[in-house]
């Protein structure tokens, strides 16, 4: 087991910078999610750590040991691929035992380790099958067992659940997390799915165009996004743009919005505020006025019912705001209704323009 340090890593393909000065510290035993839009460099970063591809500049250390020029087969990493990449010419047990048998371990040792790994992923009885006789979720488990049986220092997963349907995906998320805890392995997990990143990981890194946009625990990124991109990419956010007043911003129409969190900016510069849709309260009247709360008036343009909650789209001054409300069964607002939106400054994050 070991942590992974990546420092000032850059990798270009021709003129295109796939990774641009990325530095991340992956803690020993942690579960780290790499999140970002398509083409943002997630796979490229994972491949540098694995050793399938080599950086133009920067350093990679596994367990404190620099590995920039160490080939993949010497790095002692475990990798799980999106398409499973099981060897079709071998049984499940031979697939799982492959990493041990190429290290010329004794047959009896291999059989024991393979059985333990298969038990860990709850496929103890399927060792004799061929990969094509397994379901997608089972193949994924075999790929995982194969990757961890050699006791690698790091586990790298590139969208391992991408090919599974929603229900199976949730099962596998729980399973993966359980196994990761059980063996305590440093895990780096690439995903497209923000919910997956939020629920599974200790820390999240958001990549965009090869750069690390923001990095930290899920709560921190969700509650304190440092850019409009981070705010809208991880979860939903209403973005207001204006000029800073120091304690918030002033919209072009003069409305002031107070922000209790985020950057400290000099008054007069361009800035924006981000508010999560579930932090906004929606009502038909002004109710008891709270002098501190941010307040905006608008008109409901659309309501989407989603069982436990409803999403209201509220039009105001050329902008459509999103508000998510738990369905308590008490009140339902109709489309076209005039409403008042209220939320606290603590739920408002000030973000520097850019």
């Amino acid at each position, binding site marked *: 087991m070991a942590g992974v340090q990546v420092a000032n890593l850059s990798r270009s393909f021709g003129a295109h910078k796939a990774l641009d000065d990325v530095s991340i510290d992956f803690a020993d035993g942690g579960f780290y999610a790499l999140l970002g839009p398509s083409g943002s460099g997630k796979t490229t970063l994972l491949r540098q750590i694995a050793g399938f591809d080599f950086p133009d500049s920067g350093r990679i250390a596994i367990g404190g040991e620099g590995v920039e020029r160490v080939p993949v087969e010497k*790095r002692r990493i475990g990798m799980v691929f999106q398409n499973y990449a099981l*060897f079709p010419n071998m049984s499940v047990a031979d697939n799982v035992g492959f990493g041990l048998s*190429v290290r010329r371990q004794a047959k009896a040792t291999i059989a024991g380790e393979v059985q333990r790994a298969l038990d860990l992923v709850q496929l103890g009885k399927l060792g004799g099958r061929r990969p094509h006789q397994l379901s997608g979720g089972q193949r994924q488990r075999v790929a995982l067992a194969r990757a961890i049986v050699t006791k690698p220092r790091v586990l790298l997963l590139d969208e391992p659940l991408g090919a599974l349907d929603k229900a199976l995906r949730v099962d596998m998320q729980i399973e993966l997390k359980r196994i990761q805890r059980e063996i305590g392995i440093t895990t780096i997990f690439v995903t497209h799915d923000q919910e997956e990143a939020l629920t599974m990981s200790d820390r999240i890194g958001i990549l965009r165009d090869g750069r690390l946009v923001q990095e930290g625990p899920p709560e921190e990124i969700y509650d304190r996004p440092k850019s409009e991109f981070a705010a809208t990419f991880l979860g939903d956010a209403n973005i207001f743009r204006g000029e800073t007043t120091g304690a918030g911003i002033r919209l072009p129409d003069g409305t002031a919005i107070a922000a209790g969190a985020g950057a400290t900016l000099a008054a007069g510069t361009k800035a924006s505020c981000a508010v999560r849709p579930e932090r906004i309260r929606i009502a038909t009247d002004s109710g008891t006025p709270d002098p501190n709360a941010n307040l905006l008036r608008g008109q409901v343009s659309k309501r989407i019912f989603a069982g436990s909650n409803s999403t209201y789209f509220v039009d105001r001054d050329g902008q459509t705001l999103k508000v998510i409300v738990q369905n308590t069964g008490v009140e339902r607002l109709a489309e076209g209704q005039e409403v008042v939106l209220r939320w606290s400054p603590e739920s408002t994050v000030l973000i520097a323009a850019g």
Partner: protein
Amino acid sequence: MAGQVATGSRSGLRSALPLLLPAYLWLTVAIFLPLSAMVFFSFMTELPLSGKAWSFTLDNYATFFSQGLYWTLLLASLRLGLEVTLWCVVIGYPAAYVLAKVLRGRSREAIFLLVILPFWSNGLVRIFSWAMVLREGGILDTALNAVLPFKINIDLMYSYPAVIIGLVHSYVPYMVLTCYLTLQAIDDSLIEAGRSLGASRLQMLKRVIIPLSMPGLVAGAALIFVPVVGSFMEPRILGGRTGTFYGTVIEDQFVAVFNWPLGAALSFILLAVVLVILALASPVLRRAA
């Protein structure tokens, strides 16, 4: 349920019939008719076309079994087929691997063209070009003597190696193509997965890549072995006096001696032997593949 499936497949066959018909008609006319004529000839004493009296006989087949020469030649041809096939594997498989897994884009296309080129050139031209290269005072001899400080005589012409060289050159594209197809179908992530598990390149080759490309190797071997065993052009032109093989003897019956019945009988014996060999090899190969 079963009935439903059965009707489904029957109606599928019926709708496919118009599509299959031309192919079957062609096969009947082009292969089956001449072949059955040959079967017929192989049981005759004389060719009916010559106007002489003829009758049915087993003598043509008996000739093969009564004369040790035919056996010897058949064994020599089988050995030739085996050797040429092995050389084609040795040369063709690495070439296919490089084409499928190492080269990309333009350079792949260029090399591919070079591999296919002998395919598109006329067989006789190909063989006579080799004759010019291999004979004494030929291109190889002259070139080697120009670079080497001492005098050597290279005269491979009219020898067993010349026959092998000519045949390997003619048939290696089959091996390259069949292996290329299976190698290309192997996902690169399999190789990466293996290496991330600590396997060296050699281990990957032995444990994953070669087993997965077995179907291509087997198909290539079958495509090469069978025609080489019956080949006559390369042995005749490049082998000269040493180039007497089973195939050249059959050719003699048809074009020199005009003993078509014997030629036909010898051909069918060869066909039977080849089929038996393939049948015996198939369980072994299937397990490997």
